[in-house]
């Protein structure tokens, strides 16, 4: 006499299945027996009603097996206040996702933890975007780690424990995080570990783990990287070659030097001579393109395929120049970078050489050459090069450069200005932020159709220095005719400014 018997009858239908007829000797049985049986359907429904009522009233909780899983240990750090917690919730709910990093850094700087209800959202975010995991870990606290242990998708959190078993048994994301941490404290051990398992790693994993070596590169890594040059997969080989190129004493660099030196010839300036009736000639750089790209070159990472915009042989030359330390040229020719660059621009290969020098500057992060190349990039209005060259310089230097561009050079097409401003990363300094604001005020006073820049205004608002937030929210010429065009973007700009002000206030109060 079980409810499931009645359910069975109902499922099949009374036409096909007779309702149960036996009842136990009990009060319930007695009641059920008294239900008239002349109408099958009515019998089923009435009996079901009695039983349903009986069961619902009689139902108690279930006795759960096992015991309560262990609770989370107490937090050592404090949590952020309610206001800051509320702002995080708004950020996570999609209001201003690009401000997430700011919230995280404000919390981390004060050693504070995220509120508990935000933790699942943060853990999910870390699962989806590996790049952000390091920023997230400091605000998770004991609660976050406790929670993360419950789902395999959140295993990435505990990868920060220096536990070599993570390396042996974790998934690739966990192992990568482990290796990155180890690489910071003990780069040689990290390399050794990677070398041990290299042969068993899948090609995708190889690329990922190889990337870890990018930080802390040293000659110690050279022998391993040389073996990786023979890897089956091209991207893996190229990456290894890139790393080797960053080691000026490496064998690869020596090989590249040998190949590159014969390609260029520096011809110093000649003074004109009245007697010889010849004009003075400026310095120039003569180019002798390589004839071929033999397999040894390709093993060292030179692509056979032409780079976009250049011929095949020129592309090989560019790649070689890219890989050779810039000091090679200043040493060989005993002249300054500015002389070399100026000389490169006066010949027929100016485009190729300019490109090559710029790549080398960016790869080798050489500030001395960067200043020279920037100068020329500006003169030649090569804004594309500007974006990457600028950030070779320290922030204070590129801010000065950009300030100059903002205040003086009205010729910069504004659609590049947005990209230029937003290139690189990190908060702008106080003074630079003020300069940008000044430029924006002038810009919004003029009519424009630059909807691309308008869309970028909110990102500009995100980079301003905190002290400039208040000035950014006032003193705008909103009545001008051009404001109507800008207002949509500026509304978002103000919203971001205000949000950031709320962030500053919320954390200041904590």
């Amino acid at each position, binding site marked *: 006499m079980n409810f499931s018997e009645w359910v069975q009858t109902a*499922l099949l239908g009374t036409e096909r299945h007779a309702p149960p007829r036996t009842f136990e000797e009990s009060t319930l049985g007695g009641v059920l027996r008294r239900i008239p049986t002349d109408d099958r359907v009515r019998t089923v429904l009435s009996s079901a009603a009695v039983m349903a009522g009986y069961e619902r009233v009689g139902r108690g909780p279930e006795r759960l097996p096992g015991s309560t899983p262990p609770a989370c240990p107490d937090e050592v750090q404090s949590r952020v206040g309610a206001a800051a917690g509320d702002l995080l919730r708004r950020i996570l709910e999609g209001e201003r996702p690009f401000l997430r990093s700011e919230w995280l850094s404000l919390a981390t700087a004060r050693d504070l933890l995220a509120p508990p209800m935000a933790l699942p959202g943060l853990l999910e975010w870390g699962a989806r975007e590996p790049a952000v995991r390091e920023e997230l870990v400091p605000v998770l606290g004991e609660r976050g780690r406790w929670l993360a242990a419950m789902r395999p998708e959140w295993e990435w959190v505990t990868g920060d424990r220096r536990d070599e078993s993570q390396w042996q048994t974790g998934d690739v994301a966990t192992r990568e995080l482990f290796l990155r941490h180890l690489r910071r404290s003990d780069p040689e051990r990290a390399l050794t570990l990677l070398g041990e398992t290299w042969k068993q790693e899948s090609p995708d994993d190889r690329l990922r783990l190889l990337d870890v070596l990018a930080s802390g590169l040293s000659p110690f890594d050279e022998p391993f990287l040389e073996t990786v040059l023979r890897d089956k997969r091209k991207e893996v080989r190229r990456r290894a070659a890139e790393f080797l190129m960053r080691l000026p004493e490496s064998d690869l660099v020596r090989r590249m030097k040998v190949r590159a030196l014969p390609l260029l010839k520096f011809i110093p300036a000649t003074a004109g001579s009245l007697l010889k009736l010849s004009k003075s000639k400026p310095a120039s750089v003569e180019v002798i393109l390589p004839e071929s790209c033999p397999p040894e070159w390709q093993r060292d990472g030179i692509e056979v395929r032409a780079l976009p915009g250049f011929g095949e042989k020129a592309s090989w030359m560019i790649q070689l120049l890219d890989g050779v330390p810039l000091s090679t040229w200043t040493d060989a020719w005993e002249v300054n970078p500015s002389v070399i660059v100026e000389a490169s621009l006066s010949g027929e290969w100016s485009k190729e050489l300019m490109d090559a020098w710029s790549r080398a500057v960016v790869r080798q992060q050489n500030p001395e050459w960067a200043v020279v190349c920037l100068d020329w990039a500006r003169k030649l209005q090569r804004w594309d090069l500007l974006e990457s060259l600028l950030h070779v310089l320290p922030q204070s230097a590129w801010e000065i450069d950009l300030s100059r561009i903002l205040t003086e050079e009205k010729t910069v097409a504004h659609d590049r200005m947005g990209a230029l401003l937003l290139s690189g990363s990190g908060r702008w300094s106080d003074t630079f932020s003020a300069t940008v604001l000044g430029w924006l005020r002038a810009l919004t006073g003029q009519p424009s159709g630059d909807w691309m820049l308008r869309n970028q205004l909110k990102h500009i608002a995100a980079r301003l220095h905190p002290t400039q937030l208040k000035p950014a929210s006032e003193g705008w010429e909103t009545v001008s005719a051009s404001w109507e065009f800008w207002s949509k973007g500026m509304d978002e700009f103000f919203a971001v400014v205000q949000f950031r002000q*709320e962030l500053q206030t919320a954390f200041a109060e904590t």
Partner: protein
Amino acid sequence: MLENLTGGRQVFSNRQYMAWTSDQVLALAPDPSSAKSGKDLGVARKWRTLGATEACAWGTLQGSGKDPYQTCIDLAGPAFKCTCPSRKFPCKHGLGLFLVLAQHPGALTETSPPMWAAEWLAKRADQQEKKAAKESAPSAPVDPEAVAKAAAAAEKRAASREARVTEGLLELQTWLGDLVRTGIAALPGKPPAFWETPSARLVDAQAPGLARRIAALEGILTCGEQWPTRFLREVSRLHLACEGWSRIHRLPAETQADLRAVLGFPVGQAEVMAQAGIRDSWRVLGRRVVEEEGLRTQRVWLWGRREARPALLLSFSAGPSQPFDVGWMPGTELEADLVFFPGAAPLRALVQQRQSPVDSSDADLPHRNLSEALAQSAEWFRANPWTERFPLALRRVIPERRGDGWWVRDEAGDGVPLAVSDTVGWKLMAASGGHPVGLTGEWDGDTLMPLALHAEGSWFTP
């Protein structure tokens, strides 16, 4: 509901303890797009003028019209007024102003209300007083003939209603019978019209309560592998209502009231209000808003501390233009007189009179464990078999994940399943950290649907 407005606007004497967070403000939004528009306007910069006192807030801003819009909020309600043409309530300007108040109270610099705001507030105070006076005033002298005529008309209406309901229920019983005769296994494939038609006919038969429950049957089919059991239970309860109707006059008075409530007969609120109120400290357990067929229903669950019993405040709205009475935050408490609708297991109630403003409360939740809580719910289920849900207010439970489902476990080692999505489940886990927390929720006899969680001194609505 009366507010103590004559005491010089002392209702919320300290703006801090009833401080509204942006969360709570946005909960007042009638729909998500209003919430978003409200957020956009929650920026002090957008407002031309802004001001507040302890009892109200006001502001003006330039909208798309010629003249700036004037917006005002009576914080004691809260109640909103705005000169914009929107029919939503509260409109985005009201929400925006409230958000500015919640997030940047310092931006509301004016201190004395402008004419237009003061006028509206005075009018409101006037209306409240008039309403109070009317309710306590002696009734007007009656004309016996008019009364008799009205009574006769009412009787005729009632008789006609009864006839229609009887007919409608006979039809329903046949329909229910057909389901069981042919077998419910075939139901999951049926088109929506299969459920809409009988539901519509019940509306015609003036039994809207049953109509709603018939329409909801379709949802049971998709609730999981237990659906045949749950379906049969619900259908048998509806059959019980039909059987009950055919013998209604032989049923005890209270059960008659319950039956009429299931069918959906309206109950005169004046009659209910006229009863003696039950005074107690009523604690807010939580609030749920559901939307069915364009009708929005708000359930506010209260718990009477001394009475040790729950009360349910029901409000309905036909859409965004009709507001719910707002401001029911879990964990708050108010001293009030409640009156209950008639029935064998009274749940639904009305607030007859508030004696004090809403205040936060630190008292323990009433149910010490699940056995106690379920035992109490059993009393209600027994007395009125058509009770859909009963509130649980568990003092110390731990949310847990078992396999693919979510449960709560009490300190005796008992548990009940939760009806939550994974997103909510993980939030509950995070908020508890494996430690016992307070949890309120709606229990339907099978699962518990959480309303609010109390952990580390604060209340959360997951």
